[in-house]
Structure formats: C-alpha cells, structure tokens
C-alpha cells in the first residue's frame, strides 16, 4: 500500500485553447490513466476530471485558470501530468 496523498495545482489554459472537444478529450483520457480521484475547478464550477461531459460543462475558455486537485496513491503524478498537458495544449 502506498500512502494516500492529496495534491493541488493551478494551471492556466493557453490563451488560444479552450477546454473543448479535442483538448478536453485529451485531458480526460490522461486523467483516466490514474487511480487517484481527480477534480478540476474553473469558472466556479467543479468537474470529475475523468468525466468528459463534466469537463466540457466547465466552459473553460482560453486563458482560464484551472484548479486541479487529486487524492490517492498516484495523486502527485496525476496532478503533474495534467498540469503539463494543459500548459502544453495547442
């Protein structure tokens, strides 16, 4: 058993990239690779990072700050990976 951990980071979407369609799909598929429970908040809304419909429902346009939090064994890796993915969206 690994130790349970919680992680949180804030990352800003690139100005030209909204979290819609293809980027949102890439985000959710990356999140699904982790066992941790992962949430993402934006615009005062909260979504399960593994639910495409909830992530699309955030309505996060380019430049929006996303707060990504995770809890579970691989929480740190999950948050790091998703922050890297968001920052690298093009």
């Amino acid at each position: 058993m690994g130790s349970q951990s919680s992680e949180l980071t804030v990352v800003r979407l690139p100005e030209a990239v909204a979290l819609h369609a293809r980027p949102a799909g890439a985000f959710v598929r990356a999140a699904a690779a982790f066992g941790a429970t992962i949430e993402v908040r934006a615009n005062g809304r909260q979504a399960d990072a593994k639910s495409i419909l909830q992530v699309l429902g955030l309505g996060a346009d380019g430049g929006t700050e996303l707060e990504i939090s995770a809890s579970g064994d691989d929480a740190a890796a999950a948050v790091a990976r998703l922050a890297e993915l968001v920052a690298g969206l093009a």
Partner: protein
Amino acid sequence: MVFGIVECQAMTLETRNGVVGMVIVSHSAAIASGLAELVAQVAGPDVPIVTAGGGPDGTLGTDGGRVLAAMRAADAGAGAVILVDLGSSVLSVRAALAELSADDAAGFVLADAPLVEGAVAAGVTASTGASLAEVAGAAEEARGIAKL
C-alpha cells in the same frame, strides 16, 4: 462510414480484448456521420465508430440490415455500444440483435442515453480501454448531466 477501425485482436472464448466499438444509429445519415466525426475528435483515433444512418432507400429512416452490418464492423473483439436517436431506431437495433446468437448478441449493449452526449461520453470512455459495461455506463450517465 467507418472511423478509426482498429485491428481485430485474438479473442478467446472467455475474454474479449481490445477497444470497445460504437455504433451510431440515426434516421439521418448526416446526423450519424456528423456525430461520428465529433466523437472521433474528442475520443481520438482508436475507437471503432461505425454509423447506420438513414433508411434502405437513402431517405430518412432506419434499416435493420444496415444496423446489423454496422454492429459487426464496430466489434473489434471487445464488443460495441449502440447509440440510437428516436423511436424506430430502437426497433431496428432489436431486430438486428435478434439475428445474432445469444453469445454474439452479448457483445453489444443498446444504451438508453441521449445520442450526442451519450456518444461523446462512451467514446472517451472506450478510448481509455474500458470494458463494454463501463462504456455503456458512461453513455447512460449522460442522462443525468444538466446541459446548463
């Protein structure tokens, strides 16, 4: 129309392998193909998506024979979830399922889900390597997600 067909994988009697596929059944070929395009963009290239849109004569309608062919094309070994639009789409899918043996029919789930949201949710879930039951569950969860 076929999007992102994956290689068929070896399948034993006990287990189904590979990525779960998707069949989109609509009275309109344009709705079916447009939705397949959208799902492929969100879910990526690995999910087999096959459409059965329109009636036998190319008009608006549904066609059980076309649905059955689409089901067979979409199942790359892990089964396929079927999304439908309205009314007789359900009847056409049930007619197609009735053509299959019980074992073969077990490889398909007709999802009770809104067409667009269900297809997007199922496609992304399938792309993660999830099981047929998980993919169908993702489609049906779409019923409970508010649009606004």
